[in-house]
């Protein structure tokens, strides 16, 4: 099997730097998700791994072999596209057989391989159809079959679920994850959908502006974002950010409320000589109520809106200049009156502190 290593890889298109000095190691047999907004450089990174683009500088390794100058075929990668890119004039069978025919494999071998992969993906009954006679989910499977039939060393998926409707996406997502684990194939998966990334990834690589913002397990990314961008990109709704002033006595003051940060944070604030600080917390780590709660940091604000989403509701509160979203049980949320004064009771242990100048999480700044 294959691990992938990108060593100081940069890709420029004219004046635009699409991928900027990226170092990345993708472990053997793992599913890595490249996550970021559109235009962030994730598809370019994928195409660099595939060999469709040549890096402007830097090297790419499969295991210890330098593949920078190899063609996609020589790298033996399987690629699945957002629009599936099935050859419209070929039947499903011929679509899947196409890469094998290009390798000039014997007919009987091609036939048995096509049927094997078709059986694996449960599309055997579709082999005689044209792509336009298939549903989106079926086309997606055919595209996957065509990528897998080559027994690639690496499976690359470029927004493979984006063209499916929301319900189907959740099902196929689980199937993809299971299939990847069963095959144990090193996979790189590009998406802009953070919930998809959290659901499917062994490791998430958040990319924006051609730079890796953070790399880690879904839990690490979710619980402890490295910077403000990651904090506000991951989660639905994402983290709330509140700016506070650091006072002489070591407390933080924001919109009339005071908080004493943990000693480790305070120490870093002192060392960095920060006058201001950004505090971030997840919507589910706070509760909105009419009275402040014991042991919580509870700034006061106005209840703006309540959106019930079944079991939970999204409660929007304006606290001074900040708009804060809290996820709490619908039953409790519906007790609140819109427009009334409320307290946002934040669990202080879950608050993350960011340097407003570098937008870095203080925990990631070396002591």
């Amino acid at each position, binding site marked *: 099997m294959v691990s992938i290593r990108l060593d100081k890889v940069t890709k420029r298109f004219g004046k635009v730097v699409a991928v900027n000095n990226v170092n990345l190691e993708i472990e053997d047999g793992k599913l890595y998700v490249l996550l970021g907004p559109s235009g962030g450089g994730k598809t370019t990174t994928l195409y660099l791994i595939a060999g469709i683009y040549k890096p402007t500088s830097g090297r790419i390794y499969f295991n210890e072999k330098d593949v920078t100058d190899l063609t996609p*075929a020589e790298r033996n990668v399987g690629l699945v596209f957002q629009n599936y890119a099935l050859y419209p*004039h070929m039947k499903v069978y011929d679509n899947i057989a196409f*890469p094998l025919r290009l390798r000039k494999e014997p007919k009987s071998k091609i036939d048995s391989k096509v049927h094997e992969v078709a059986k694996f993906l449960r599309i055997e009954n579709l082999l005689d159809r044209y792509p336009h006679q298939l549903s989106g989910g079926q086309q997606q499977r055919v595209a996957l079959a065509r990528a897998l039939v*080559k027994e690639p060393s690496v499976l690359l998926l470029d927004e493979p679920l984006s063209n499916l409707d929301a319900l189907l996406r959740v099902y196929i997502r689980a199937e993809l994850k299971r299939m990847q684990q069963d095959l144990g194939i090193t996979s790189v998966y590009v998406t802009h959908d953070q919930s998809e990334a959290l659901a499917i990834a062994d490791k998430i690589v958040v990319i924006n502006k051609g730079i890796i913002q953070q790399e880690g397990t879904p839990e690490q990314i979710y619980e402890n974002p490295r910077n403000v961008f990651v904090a506000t990109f991951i989660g639905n709704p994402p983290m709330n950010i509140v700016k506070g002033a650091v006072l002489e006595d070591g407390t933080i003051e924001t919109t009339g409320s005071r908080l004493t940060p943990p000693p480790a944070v305070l120490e870093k604030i002192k060392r960095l000589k920060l006058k201001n600080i950004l505090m971030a917390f997840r919507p589910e780590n706070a509760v909105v109520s009419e009275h402040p709660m014991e042991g919580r940091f509870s700034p006061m604000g106005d209840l703006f809106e309540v959106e019930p989403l079944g079991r939970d509701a999204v409660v929007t509160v304006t606290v001074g200049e900040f708009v804060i979203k809290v996820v709490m049980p619908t039953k409790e949320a519906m007790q609140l009156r819109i427009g009334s004064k409320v307290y946002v009771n934040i669990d202080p242990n879950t608050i993350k502190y960011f340097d407003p100048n570098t937008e870095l999480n203080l925990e990631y700044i070396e002591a």
Partner: protein
Amino acid sequence: MRIRKASLLFFLGPALLVVALFYIIPLFLSVYISFTPMVDWNVNRYLTQFIGLQNYERLFHIVMYDPDMRAVVITTVVFVLVTLIINVFGGLLLALATYFMDEKMSATYQGLWLLPRMTPIAVYSLLWYYFFHSSGIGILNSILLKLHLIDHPIALGLDPKYLPWGAWFIIIFVNGLVGVSYGMIIFYSAFKSIPKELIIAARVDGASTTRIIKHILLPLTKWHFTFVTVWQMFSLLMTYAQTFLLVEWRVVDSTWGQTWALYVFRTAFTTTKDQGLAAAASTFLSIIGIVLGIVALKALGYEKMILEPKGDI
């Protein structure tokens, strides 16, 4: 319902009028004239005389027994066939070449190939008049003389020594050069409309450029191929402007450089001014054109291409 009809007529009226005025009426007039003994545009005298199929009989007789007319028929077949192949496959080659170039290069390249089409016919023909001129000032002659390939100027399109090949070469060359850009533009835009991912997918699957052309680009542009072929066949059957000027300016032989369409034009307007015969020849050409068009569409599988999709859309 009445309002609908009125508004239909209002919106379609102007276009229908133009079509009727410039296409339908002349078509009927032309067919009608082929049944009259009209000569020298003497409309008052001949327009009311009906002579049945006499012009067609004369035409048939000329084709059968006049060697010059045999030359017209052979020239037409050779001209249409060879130029068609050049236009379609040349256009295809140019489209492929420009498709695999980078954008800027391909735009410049295509612009160059479009120049003949953008040049007025007279100017374009004049260019080739100078090029193929039978005296020493002809560009081709002066090049060949400089290279010592010939020792005195040659009349490629006129000298019986080189006929019919010399004349054919010139008219095919001149018309082919204009014609390729049409196929190039159609094929190029057809290739461009194929999703880029298909090409990338094929590359990832290990397809060489030749394989991509053979397995992806060509099969997906079958319809454009049919269209360009049939369309170019029609226009080659009917075209005569450049060839007419080259014949009039004595660059190519008036017998072996004359296609059927040009024969129609010259018979009606310059040589014998026998409009009745010309009208019969033009009607005959139109019938041949329609038949060939239908045969070509059938042969290239047009019906299969317009079948309704079977699955969900």
